[in-house]
């Protein structure tokens, strides 16, 4: 894997409510440059919402987000999102475009690369995820695992400083999970700054530098995988781990 121009990401005191429903209640999170932070917790704990707030798909009610130490809340949110790649549970490839067009679209339209250059760069990215031979296929002709790898290539093509993974393997058939996790592990080892919302405890434990356990809109515990998995301090984390392990 190539080197990445990755950056650090800091969220401080993030609050968000949908009406009276307080989804995030004072989240602090710091992801140093080149590290991988896993976020775990029961469904409905606010993990996916936190990702969407950190790239401002949803604007926080309160709090600050900093990329490389500089607050980005005053920036144009489109500009911010160009610096943060995001991979979704449901892949969300564009079904009306070919695989290579999925990757080149943003390069051409946002980065303003000439079409042939964007195409060439997209092919390079597809080669990195092992799917260059599928360049001219339609997304629905690919397996779920292949689609997710294309989605990762699409995000990486924009040369993001941080990558978000929102339960990237949850929608995959068990036999297809491995390939996607291997790719995420490569990225992590290659020095990408990553925030990974996941239910894959193996990935959490073996690949991530820090693990954050969220429940009910707050960070309950955060630390190294060893600390959280071997010596959980709170009853809530112990309960969660006994449910999922």
């Amino acid at each position, binding site marked *: 894997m190539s080197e990445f121009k990755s950056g650090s990401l800091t969220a401080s005191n993030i609050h968000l409510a949908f009406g009276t429903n307080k989804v995030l209640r004072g989240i602090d999170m710091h992801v140093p440059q080149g590290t991988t932070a896993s976020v775990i917790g029961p469904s409905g704990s606010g993990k996916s919402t936190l990702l969407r707030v950190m*790239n401002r*798909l949803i604007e926080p009610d309160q709090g600050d987000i900093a990329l490389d130490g500089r607050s980005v809340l005053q920036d144009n949110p*489109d*500009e911010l*999102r*160009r610096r*943060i*790649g*995001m991979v*979704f549970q*449901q892949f*969300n*490839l*564009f*079904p*009306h475009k070919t695989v290579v067009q999925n990757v080149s*679209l*943003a390069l051409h*339209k*946002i980065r303003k690369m000439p079409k042939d250059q964007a195409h060439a760069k997209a092919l390079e990215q597809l080669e990195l995820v092992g799917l260059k031979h599928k360049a001219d296929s339609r997304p*629905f*002709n*690919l*397996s*779920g695992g292949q689609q997710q790898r294309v*989605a990762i290539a*699409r*995000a990486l093509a*924009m040369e993001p400083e941080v990558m978000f993974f929102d339960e990237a393997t949850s929608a995959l*058939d068990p*036999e297809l999970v491995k390939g996607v996790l291997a790719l995420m592990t490569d990225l992590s080892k290659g020095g990408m700054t990553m925030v990974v919302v996941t239910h894959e405890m193996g990935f959490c434990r073996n690949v991530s530098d820090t693990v954050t356990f969220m429940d009910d809109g707050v960070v309950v515990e955060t630390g190294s995988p060893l600390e959280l998995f071997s010596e959980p301090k709170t009853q809530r984390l112990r309960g969660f781990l006994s449910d999922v392990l």
Partner: protein
Amino acid sequence: MDALDQFLKTFFDWQAIGEVIPQMLTVGLPNTLILAVSSAILGCILGLVLAVMGISRNPVLRWISRVYTDIFRGLPAILVIVVIGIGLGPILRQLTGITNPFPLAILALTLMAGAYIGEIFRSGIQSVDKGQLEASRALGFGYGQAMLLVVIPQGIRRVLPALVNQLIALIKDSSLIYLLGVTAGQRELYRVSNDYAANSGSLSPLIAAGLLYLILTVPLTHLVNFMDKRLREGKAARAEPDEAAALVGKGA
């Protein structure tokens, strides 16, 4: 046998049909197509504007789109064509000197088609998975660009069959232009055959016109069915061989 003769003479007078056919092909058919196709194209543009307004976050735009659609979907075509064509005719003539009824007929057909097509587009665009907009925004596209490049093309693709249905409706409704008064060269299919029917005292020219309408619309109907089927089965043919095999294995 008199009754049968009477019947055949009324509906299948081959001589009358033979006389009307050249006129229908050279005058009526082109005019019908001009009316239907141009109002279909303009109706699509108007419909797209109405659809985008209808899903806008601005409540005023949504309201305008709603009221417009309710009005023009709720009125009979004949009323709209007469009111616009006859009502605005003198004004158009004073302003531009145009006496041709085509522009106003196309306007009336467009206003109605736009209301229907707007609803078709809106339902298509809204049926696109929310994840598509989210993924586009996450890549850094603004709302407008994400809609234009990703969401709207998918929405339109899904409603192509319904759009062809609108084209069929326009081919039929274009016959109403005869109410505005047309010169010999401006007659469309229905009017051409109606004139011949009046002269010959036989309804056979109308039967001929009916056949020509069907030659236009029946293939389009089948095109709709074909597109419908392809859109549905294109989705079903998903799994790759290895994945299909894996699924079979799991079921066992």
